[in-house]
C-alpha cells in the first residue's frame, strides 16, 4: 500500500529543446494552486478579516462604525445569547443523532443489500437537492400543520402526550415546537450523513464479513467488531457534515419554530439584517465558529480517526 509504484520519468538526453526538468517544473505546483489560493483569499480570508474588524468596532449606523478594539462585545453577546447557543448545540446534536440512526441502516442497505437497485436508491437520496432548500422546509410546514393528518395520527397514538411531557411539543401542536425544528434539521441534512456513510461502508471488503462469520462471529457481532469500526471514517465525517451546518442553521428554526426555539443562526440573522448591530452579529459568528472548531477537534481526537479519507 505504501510502496511507490510510479517509475521516475525517463530522462531523454537527446531531446533538443528541453530545459532541465527541475527549472521547468519548479513553479508548476504553484501555478496550479493559484486559482484556489485566490478564491480562498477573496471569498474566505478577506471576509474573515473584515468580520473580525467589525466585531471590535463601536458606533452606530448613522455615525458609522470605527475600530475601537472593543472586545467587550464578545462577552456581552455571549451573556445575552447563551441560551440560543445551548439550544443550537442541543438541536444540532439531536438532529445529528437522528440522522445517524436513520442514515446508517439506509447506507448499510444501499451498500450491501441493494444489488441492482443501488444506483436508483442513491439518486433518490440525492433527489431532494433538486428542489430548493426553502421549498422543502416550507413543505414540512404543511406536513406538520395543526390538525393535519400527521399531527392527528400522533395525537391518536398518544405520541404527543409523551413528547409534550418531555417538552418537545406543546398541546396539540407540533409546528412551532422544538420537535418540528429538529425534524426539519434531520430531514434537510440526512443526505450529508448518508453519503459519507455509504462511501465508507461500500469500501469494506465483503470477504471480511465472511471471515468474521468463519471465525465464529454471529451477524450482530460481525457488525459490532468489524463493520462498524471499519465505517468509523464515514460516521465521523457524516456527523461533522450534519452537525456543523445544523448548528449554524436558521431557516428551520425560522420556518418551523417559534420565538422559543430560536437558534444562534436566527440571532445572528436578526442582528445583521433587522437590528443592524453588525459588531454583535460578527462577534456571535466568531464565537460560533470557535465553539465548533473546538468541538470538532475534541471529537476527532476522541474518535481516533484523524484521516477522514
Amino acid at each position, binding site marked *: 500500500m505504501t510502496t511507490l509504484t510510479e517509475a521516475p520519468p525517463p530522462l531523454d538526453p537527446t531531446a533538443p529543446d528541453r530545459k532541465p526538468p527541475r527549472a521547468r517544473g519548479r513553479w508548476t505546483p504553484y501555478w496550479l494552486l493559484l486559482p484556489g489560493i485566490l478564491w480562498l483569499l477573496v471569498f474566505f480570508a478577506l471576509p474573515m478579516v473584515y468580520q473580525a474588524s467589525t466585531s471590535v468596532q463601536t458606533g452606530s449606523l448613522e455615525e458609522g462604525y470605527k475600530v475601537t478594539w472593543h472586545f467587550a462585545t464578545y462577552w456581552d453577546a455571549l451573556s445575552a445569547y447563551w441560551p440560543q447557543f445551548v439550544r443550537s448545540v442541543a438541536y444540532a446534536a439531536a438532529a445529528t443523532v437522528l440522522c445517524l440512526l436513520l442514515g446508517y441502516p439506509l447506507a448499510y442497505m444501499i451498500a450491501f443489500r441493494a444489488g441492482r437497485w443501488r444506483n436508483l436508491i442513491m439518486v433518490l437520496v440525492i433527489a431532494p437537492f433538486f428542489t430548493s432548500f426553502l421549498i422543502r422546509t416550507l413543505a414540512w410546514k404543511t406536513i406538520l400543520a395543526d390538525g393535519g393528518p400527521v399531527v392527528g395520527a400522533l395525537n391518536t397514538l398518544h405520541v404527543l402526550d409523551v413528547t409534550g411531557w418531555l417538552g418537545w411539543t406543546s398541546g396539540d401542536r407540533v409546528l412551532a415546537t422544538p420537535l418540528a425544528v429538529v425534524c426539519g434539521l434531520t430531514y434537510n441534512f440526512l443526505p450529508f450523513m448518508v453519503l459519507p456513510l455509504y462511501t465508507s461502508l461500500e469500501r469494506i471488503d465483503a470477504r471480511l464479513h465472511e471471515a468474521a462469520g*468463519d471465525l465464529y462471529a454471529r451477524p450482530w457481532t460481525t457488525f459490532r467488531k468489524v463493520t462498524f469500526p471499519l465505517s468509523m471514517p464515514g460516521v465521523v465525517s457524516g456527523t461533522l457534515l450534519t452537525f456543523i451546518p445544523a448548528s449554524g442553521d436558521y431557516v428551520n428554526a425560522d420556518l418551523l419554530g417559534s420565538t422559543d426555539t430560536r437558534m444562534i443562526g436566527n440571532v445572528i440573522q436578526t442582528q445583521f439584517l433587522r437590528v443592524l448591530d453588525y459588531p454583535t452579529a460578527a462577534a456571535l459568528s466568531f464565537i460560533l465558529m470557535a465553539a465548533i472548531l473546538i468541538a470538532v477537534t475534541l471529537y476527532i481526537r476522541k474518535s481516533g480517526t484523524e484521516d477522514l479519507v
Partner: protein
Amino acid sequence: MKTTTDSSGDVRLSGISKTYGSFTAVHPLDLTVPEGSFFALLGASGCGKTTTLRMIAGLEEPTTGTVSLGEQDVTALPPYKRPVNTVFQSYALFPHLDIFENVAFGLRRRGIKSVKKQVEEMLELVQLGEQARKKPHQLSGGQQQRVAVARALINHPKVLLLDEPLGALDLKLRRQMQLELKRIQTEVGITFVHVTHDQEEAMTMADTVAVMNAGRVEQLGSPADLYENPRTTFVANFLGTSNLIEAETGSGGGDEIAVRAGDCTLLLPRARCSAPATAGGKVLVGVRPEKISLVHADDAGSVPAGRNRITGTIADSSFIGVSTQYVVDSPVCPRLEVYAQNIERDARLVPGAEVVLHWSPAHTFGLDAAQDIGAGVEEAA
C-alpha cells in the same frame, strides 16, 4: 461450537451440488476427505473447486446433498457454528485490528478470556512473534498469508480450508510457503483442504488430489497415481504434459494390448488402459515426455527389442540446463514432446535430424478416444 475430538473427523460430501439459475457450478459430488490428510482440489478457474470449498465452510448453501464432519451433519449450520476455518484467497485480514487481535479474533468470539499464551504460541508457529502489534498493511504478502493461517489454525478446527492461499505471492515465496504449510500441517495434524489451480502446488503439498473440471471430479488419487495413470485426457494434459497418439486397437490377449498407429505397432499394458479395448476400436495411447528416449536414426539398431518405437524428425529443441526438451514431428503424431536428461549430449540431435523415439511399454497408458484430445491443455498453467 466447541471443537470436539471424536475419532472420526472425516469430511464427507454426499451428492452435493450447486446451481446458480441455469448454471451448474458443481454437479452432484461424493467425496470423502480422510481425517488428518492434506487434500487438494485442483482445477482451472471456474471448475467449481472454490464453490465446493465454500459449501464445506458454510459460506455457500448447497442446492442438493449434505456435508458431514465426522458423525455430524453440518449442512444446515451457519459458518459461525461450524468447526471449520478458512484461509481466504486475499487473506481477508481485519485491517483495523493488529496481528495479535486478528489471530485472537476466533478465540474471543468463543468467549475465551486468556488468549495471550495461545496467540503467542500460534504466532511463534508461523514465525511472526515479533510482529504482534503491527497492522496487517505493514506486513509483506507472505507474512499476511501466515497471519491468515495462524488466525484460522488457532481455533483447532476439524478442517482447515485454504482457498488459493498462495495465489497472490511471487514464485519464490510461493515455493517457500508450500513447504511451510506442509510443515505446519504435519505439526498440527489437522485436515487441510486446499483449493488451487497450480498443479505443481497440488502435487508438492497434497497426499490426495481431486482434479476437477466443469463442476465434476475427473479423477482422485495420490499425486504419483494421477500423474502416472491419468484416466481422462483432461487429467493427462492438465497434470504435466502428455503425448497422446491416436491409435487403433489390434487383436491380442494377455496382459498387453497391441495397437496400431500409422505403420507402428505399440504395446500397452491392459491394466493401464481406461478405454474399452475391443479389436478395431479407437484408443489414445499416452506417454509422458520424460519416459521417452531419443536416438539418432543411424543408431536405430541400438534400441533394445520389446520397446515401443516411433520414428520422426526433430522440429525444435531447447536446452534448459538439467534437460533438453525436444519437439519431434512423427507421421503418427505431430509435435511429440521428449525431455532428455543431460547426461551425454549427442551433437547430431539438432532440428531436422531423423530420430527414433522409444520407451518401455510399461510406461504407456491408454485413454478413451471418444474424448477431446486437447482437453486441459489450455487450462494448464
